[in-house]
Structures are given as C-alpha cells and as structure tokens.
C-alpha cells in the first residue's frame, strides 16, 4: 500500500537527480542549436484510475476542473495540474509544484465505484529538455514519431527513450518533459547529456 505523502519539512526533500544539478547545468548548449536539460524535482503526481465513461470519471473531472483525456496522447490541464493519458482507464495527474494533491476530494469523487487515487510523487521525477535541438536529442533514442504533425505540443505518450521506460510529455514548443522512474533517472540523465554533446560543436556538412 502506498502511503499518502506525509506533511513534513519540504525543504528536506531532494529529487533523484539532486547530485547531478551542476552536471546538468554544465551540459547546457547555447547558440542556434541550443538545448538545455534540468530536473524539475518533487512534483506532486497522482495516479488515477476509473472507468473512462462511468460516473466516477465524470466526478473526478469535476474535481480537476477538466474532462479526463480519452485517447492515447491526449492531456488535459486542470486546476491541480495536467492529467496525462496512460491507458484507457488510467491517468497520471502531474502538478506544477510540490503542493499536496487534493487526495481526499479525489477519493471522495471516486465514491464506491471501482478505481484508485494514489499519491505516486516518489515514483517518477521530471526531466525537462528545452531548446531548438530538444527534438533532435530525443530522436536519437525514442521511437515514436516526434514531428510536430504527429506529436504537437499538448501531447504525452508512454514509451521509452534511451531504453528507459518513461512518459514523454510535450507541454510546449521546443520543450519536452521526460518522466522516468526515479531509479532510472540517473542513467537517463547521463544518456541525454551524452546525446546533447554534439550540438555544442560546429555542424558537419
């Protein structure tokens, strides 16, 4: 059983990539092919499950202030963060900060219907890749079509990058957020820094 996040001194919380903060900053590439990588640590995340066309999903949407997405790749921005589609009856609610999620209200919205509301903030971390070369970096090891016609801003898919299973979220142009499990984050960060290296060098014709 996952326990709800205990209220405690938030200042003591560290992201799984805390030890790489300096390395991520040093890997920043500037210029016309710029790309930068940073961790957005300790975002509140909530796993939601409910029958997609049932009354529980409608009540959850009421709490979130936005209808839950129903198709692969769709996301929905609400009051408490963005709901990413993970499966036909499964969503990941990602907040923009570490503030506690409205677990009580969401659990109450579920009522007696089958489903779940679980705080999974410690499961994943968020890596943000930003810059004109961000897509090029990802395309070295991420199979889905990332061209804007197939993967425009506002979409998110569960897939793999650098052989690490993750949720890939494209919240805005030139910005990608990668949500790997905490224990894979170190490997993924090093993989991304390695992939970013070439963009700091002159382009070879």
């Amino acid at each position: 059983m996952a326990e709800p996040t205990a209220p405690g001194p938030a200042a003591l919380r560290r992201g799984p990539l805390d030890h790489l903060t300096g390395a991520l900053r040093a890997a920043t590439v500037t210029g016309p092919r710029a790309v930068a990588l940073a961790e957005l640590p300790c975002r509140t995340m909530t796993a939601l499950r409910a029958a997609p066309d049932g009354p529980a999903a409608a009540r959850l949407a009421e709490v979130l202030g936005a209808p839950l997405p129903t198709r692969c790749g769709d996301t929905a921005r609400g009051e408490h963060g963005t709901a990413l589609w993970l499966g036909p009856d499964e969503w990941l609610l990602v907040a923009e900060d570490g503030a506690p999620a409205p677990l009580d209200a969401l659990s109450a919205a579920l009522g007696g219907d089958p489903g779940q509301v679980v705080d999974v903030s410690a499961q994943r971390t968020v890596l943000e890749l930003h810059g004109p070369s961000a897509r090029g970096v990802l395309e070295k090891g991420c199979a889905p079509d990332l061209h804007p016609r197939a993967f425009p801003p506002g979409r998110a898919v569960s897939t793999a990058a650098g052989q690490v299973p993750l949720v890939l979220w494209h919240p805005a142009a030139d910005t990608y957020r990668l949500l790997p499990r905490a224990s894979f984050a170190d490997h993924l960060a090093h993989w991304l820094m390695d992939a970013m290296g070439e963009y700091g060098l002159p382009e070879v014709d």
Partner: protein
Amino acid sequence: MLQLTCPWCGPRDETEFHHGGQAHVARPADPAALDDREWAAYLFFRDNPAGPFAERWVHSLGCRRWFHAVRDTVTYAVLATYRPDEPRPGVAAAARPEGESR
C-alpha cells in the same frame, strides 16, 4: 524492427511489447471434471501453424493493456491487431516471395 499496432496506442516498436502465447485458448468450464491428460492438454499444448496465428501481446511500455494479434509465422507479417473482447478477424496469409517453400 517489427512494429505492432496497439488497439489503444497505435503503431509502436516491438520492444515496447511482450508476447503472451496463443490467443483464444478457452479455459475448461469445469476443470475438476478433466483427467490429467486433458488438463495437461489445456495447460501446455498449443498450435504451431506455419501461417496466420492468433497471439496475445501486452503493451508493457505503453498502456499496459493486453490485446490480440494475428501474425503470419512464416513471413512475420502482423496481419491484424484487435482488442481481447473483439472476435478474431478473418485475414488471409500474407503473400510469400516466389519459390519460397514452407
């Protein structure tokens, strides 16, 4: 790389999936009524066709849902994918290169 079309997520690389063996193997209605030979046949014996074969797959790295695929075991062509609650679609075997024998 083999690509499979997940009924929920669309086309993805084979590395996102795991294979789950033959599909549409019906569980006996009354297992207690079977003798050991019949029970073993249900548990362990599977078809091994050269040609279209209905299989179970799970989209492990995506939506984590099980689905069915009809795959030609000779050409490796995936002829159809469909949800587990849908019936097996009628599909013909993929065309094989000239002169190839089974």
